[in-house]
């Protein structure tokens, strides 16, 4: 049977991808950002997951204003890299796992989560930056990916509670997949940042670190109860991306062990947060 062996949370700042692509990771500005991923790169090289269910948001790339799915699951064989305005990132295409993806989609729909099924799309920095942070710059990605795109751009995004419950439904789906697969769930985006208006540049390290604490323990009720307005006021308008971490956290079950934690300000306009968690059963 397939099994969820770990959860990873990480910011997906586009400038982090650019720093990798342009060979700037050793520069003094960037070095402390990337140093926090050294442990994780070693760890994942040993873990060798078969599939990552990668929760991210599309930043007006595959989805524009014509169609706004709340939860969209990628069921394609492969995903190209989109041109976000400065040319596509020079990273390999992302290889999907259509069998597992369709299985999750079907299982979640029967579990009353009305997923949007996507058979053709390109992926943006929201998905590729976490891949680069964990796997570096390989010729081909060493893992298959089930992209799960969440709308956190047009209000209202899904509630934290809904995200958590979707994570639980994904866990049930994975556990009922017959093939023996080592599956990780990643939640990306965040932490505190605001990319718009006179309040841009907001960072709330105290709030972010409390959130990292809650994520690292049996605190589902507290995490699920955080309303959108709290993310907006405390962590900036783009801090709302952290609801996506709750899908990953919900998929891991009540108890987790934090294997690694990293927090750094700034990367561009953003606070970078990163966790590696494993379920305790």
């Amino acid at each position: 049977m397939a099994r969820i062996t770990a959860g990873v949370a990480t910011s997906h700042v586009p400038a982090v991808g650019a720093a990798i692509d342009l060979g700037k990771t050793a520069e003094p500005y960037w070095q402390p950002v990337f140093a926090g991923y050294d442990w994780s790169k070693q760890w994942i090289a040993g873990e060798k997951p078969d599939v990552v269910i990668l929760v991210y948001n599309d930043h007006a790339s595959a989805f524009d204003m014509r169609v706004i799915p709340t939860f969209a699951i990628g069921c394609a064989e492969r995903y190209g890299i989109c041109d976000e305005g400065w040319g596509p990132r020079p990273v390999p295409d992302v290889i999907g796992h259509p069998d597992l993806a369709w299985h999750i989609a079907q299982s979640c729909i029967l579990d009353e989560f009305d997923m949007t099924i996507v058979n053709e799309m390109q992926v943006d920095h929201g998905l590729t930056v976490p891949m680069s942070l964990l796997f570096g710059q390989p010729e081909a990605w060493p893992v298959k990916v089930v992209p799960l795109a969440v709308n956190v751009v047009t209000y209202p995004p899904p509630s934290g509670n809904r995200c958590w419950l979707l994570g639980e439904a994904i866990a049930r789906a994975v556990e009922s997949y017959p093939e023996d697969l080592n599956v990780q769930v990643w939640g990306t985006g965040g932490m505190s940042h605001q990319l718009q208006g006179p309040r841009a540049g907001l960072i709330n390290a105290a709030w972010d670190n409390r959130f990292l604490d809650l994520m690292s323990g049996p605190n589902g009720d507290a995490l699920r109860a955080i309303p959108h307005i709290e993310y907006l006021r405390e962590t900036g308008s783009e801090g709302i991306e952290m609801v996506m971490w709750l899908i990953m956290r919900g998929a891991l079950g009540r108890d987790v062990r934090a294997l690694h934690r990293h927090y750094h300000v700034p990367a561009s306009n953003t606070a970078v947060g990163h966790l590696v968690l494993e379920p305790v059963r």
Partner: protein
Amino acid sequence: MSGHTDIHAYLAEFDDIPGTRVYTAARARQGYWMNQFAMSLMTAENRERFKADERAYLDAWPLSEEQKQALLNRDYNRCLDLGGNIYFLAKLFSTDGLSFLQAVGTMTGMSPQDYQAMMIAGGRSPEGVRSIREKR
């Protein structure tokens, strides 16, 4: 947590956050074509056509004159007021060769140097900018 949320009360709170335009349905409807115009800049060919004659390119879209002027002026706060969304507008500032850091800073009234320095020093504190009503 689960159960009914009053949409009016939910939306009303967004107006209480200083210096912030939450991308609500009302803004999404107002800015529909502004954001779709920005999406068109995701190909090199369209970026070249836009740069060659910005005004003519914008005239091909059903935008208000105010929206066109805000885009031509790269007045991003004004663009947000007219329904733009930053992830869509990112296609415009990327076409200009600006990073998120450079473009976002223009909305704060700070110089690029001061904004960058603020971020390196830990960013803007949330103290005093959480709520207009509660002054906290």
